């Protein structure tokens, strides 16, 4: 049925305008009918249609005005006046629906640049063979032609989609409506319907073979770290990066096949990377493995001073013991008060949570014990000792390679276990209200 009408179209679609109109009307009616016979299943999911058309290129030819009194009003470039506006509106409707279906629209400049295409008039594209040829030469998967004719208060609209690979009519419609503003709503709906039917045209029906698999003779891994060993998912070593690359004889690996490779290098964290088989596979660098880092910090509630810490990792970049010192002063509360001097020392155990050492953002938690020595030069006695428990400190860290910036709220409780002390048994809160918060930087050795 479909083939028969298509043949009819080819025979009748000759250059003379009147005959073109008639031929197109006959062809489109027939093709629409034929498509409609197969359409209903395809209308179930426009999302599926959009997915199948994602990235496919389409060539939308100007909308041709075949009204009896038409002027040069073919969209998108043609003329001015009511006819031109109408043509542009229809062209826009087509473009919008195709873009919505995730087609990639070629511009007129793109499809005109092939030899011989520049001189073609909009009406020439109403010839399906011309449309398919031009679109195909531009690399499009789909060609879209359309025309309309206004007679008194009615409008006839025809839109046709052609598969450029098979040359077949893929979908389309021809409708007449009373010509008013409702036309455009109806037009959008018809285009969407036609696009949903478009999904019913499987490539296999055209008799063309599926794309041929490309088998790669070798994979070349590239990476910035010399000596990095690459292991495949089955545990086989592919070798080590030398002079920035590793050529791995991999006959039989299909191009595009997903691979999970393990990357190893002494002094760095082992990591796994998902790649796709390709002649050249670029590998990301490994994160340095640190067993020692130093920390500089500044704590709210101890701002007249600064601190430092040493971290010794027993799991590189992950779990550690930390020893810190933080000297700071405390200003008098009144003009008749005295300066105080404190030295905060702490030993703690900490660990990172959730994210890998090379993550941009990391989180961690630590706990520990500490002792604050306070010197009050004008007080009897002048030395005080406040032991405290760092119940938990949780920090967020911006990991910038060897340097990290962190922010760490802390929950500490004075134990009042030495005498004399100043804090007794109490939760440490600057100003009696806030939790201590430390801003710091870490340098990884």
């Amino acid at each position: 049925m479909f083939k028969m009408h298509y043949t009819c179209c080819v025979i009748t679609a000759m250059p003379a305008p009147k005959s073109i109109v008639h031929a197109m009307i006959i062809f489109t009616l027939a093709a629409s009918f034929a498509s409609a016979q197969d359409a209903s299943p395809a209308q179930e999911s426009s999302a599926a249609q959009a997915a199948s058309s994602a990235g496919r290129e389409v060539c939308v030819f100007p909308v041709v005005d075949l009204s009896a009194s038409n002027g040069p009003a073919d969209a998108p470039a043609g003329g001015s006046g009511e006819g031109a506006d109408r043509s542009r509106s229809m062209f826009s409707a087509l473009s919008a629906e195709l873009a919505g279906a995730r087609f990639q629209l070629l511009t007129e400049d793109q499809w005109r640049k092939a030899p011989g295409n520049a001189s073609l008039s909009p009406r020439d594209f109403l010839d399906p063979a011309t449309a398919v040829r031009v679109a195909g030469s531009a690399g499009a998967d789909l060609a879209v032609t359309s025309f309309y004719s206004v007679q008194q208060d009615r409008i006839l609209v025809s839109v046709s989609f052609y598969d450029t690979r098979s040359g077949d009519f893929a979908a389309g419609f021809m409708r007449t409506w009373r010509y008013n503003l409702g036309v455009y709503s109806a037009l959008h709906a018809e285009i969407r319907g036609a696009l949903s039917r478009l999904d019913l045209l499987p490539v296999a029906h055209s008799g063309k073979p599926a794309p041929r698999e490309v088998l790669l003779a070798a994979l070349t891994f590239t990476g910035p770290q010399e000596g990095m060993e690459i292991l495949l998912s089955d545990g086989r070593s592919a070798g080590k990066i030398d002079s920035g690359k590793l050529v791995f004889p991999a006959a039989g690996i299909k191009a595009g096949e997903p691979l999970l490779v393990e990357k190893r290098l002494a002094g760095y964290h082992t990591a796994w990377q998902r790649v796709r088989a390709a002649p050249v596979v670029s590998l990301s660098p490994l994160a340095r493995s640190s067993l020692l880092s130093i920390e500089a910090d500044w704590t709210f509630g101890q701002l007249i001073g600064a601190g430092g810490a040493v971290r010794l990792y027993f799991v590189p970049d992950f779990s550690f013991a930390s020893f810190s010192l933080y000297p700071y002063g405390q200003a008098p509360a009144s003009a008749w008060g005295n300066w105080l001097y404190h030295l905060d020392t702490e030993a703690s155990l900490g660990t990172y949570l959730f994210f890998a050492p090379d993550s941009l953002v990391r989180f961690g938690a630590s706990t520990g014990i500490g002792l604050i020595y306070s010197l009050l030069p004008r007080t009897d006695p002048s030395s005080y000792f406040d032991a405290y428990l760092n119940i938990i400190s949780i920090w967020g860290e911006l990991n910038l390679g060897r340097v990290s910036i962190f922010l760490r709220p802390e929950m500490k409780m004075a134990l009042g276990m030495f005498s004399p002390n100043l804090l007794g048994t109490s939760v440490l809160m600057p100003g009696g209200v806030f939790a201590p918060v430390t801003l710091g930087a870490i340098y990884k050795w």
Partner: protein
Amino acid sequence: MVASRVFRVLALAAALGLLGTCDFFTLSTFPATASQLAAQRDLSAEIPASFARTFALSAVTAGSIDLVFLATQLPYDGAHLIVMDKDLHVLQTFSLQDLINFGASFSSAGAIRGTAGDVSIQGLHWSVTAMGLSSPVTFTTSPEPGAFCVTDGTDNYAGFNISGNTLSYYGYSAVWAVFNNYYPYPLSTNAAASFNLIGAYDDPSLADVVLIFEENNSAQDYCFTFPKSQLLGGLAFSPDLQTNYPPLQTYRADNRLIAYTQNGYIKFQKEPNGQGGTFIRLDMAGNTLPYSLRYTEDTDIQIATRNAGGWYYEYNRTTRMVRKISAWWGR
């Protein structure tokens, strides 16, 4: 969009404002009072944990000698009186059978006298030295010691008691002989009013004796000043006292922490959230002066001021620490 920009500008302004204040940089984990700390003693060796349910603290100046008395009432173990020098070194500890109502101590010419519940501590038996006290100390029964005593500097004393709306006092000689009659006076024309006596102060530099009351049915503290000569001279007052001796009325101090010192008052105002509070300074007319001291620590304290100022003492019942705090309003 506009709201978002306004919010960002306000947040930035708030952040800069906070940074711009001294508080941001001077806020400390340690209490602000630490910078005013002149001395501190841990009395946990003298006072058993959790038993010191009742305590009273007073400071006494006798010539060049300053003494601090801390009395504690232990429900199952009688009472203790700890005597310390001005820097809080413990001089002597006394055990008493009971300590119903420990009162202020007072002094004159090298003698120190005080009251402790049903007994009076007779200064005649104390020999004050620069470093401490010599034993033994004896206690003699006082007929009606009253909670608070003042002296006129001639070894005559007055002890006050308050019951409901009625203030009464006795005059005593140096050996606790009553030489003045018992005088009951209504404090207020409101017979239903009920007062508690918080403190009595006899500053030698003042012609008046200062008595501070709290009224149970209002949120007011009353600071009365009575002529010292009239009080100890056995001259009658004109009732009611509130009308004839108009007191300074001030919004009630939290935890009864209001005291006279150095020609003014210090008064505690608790933070609404219960996290500490602030001592403010009032002059004798009740004007708030631009001095204050923020307390972020436990304020389960009692204070004892010196008439001459310079410093005061506080005892924390929870931590059993007694501290000497430098005057933050000046010396």
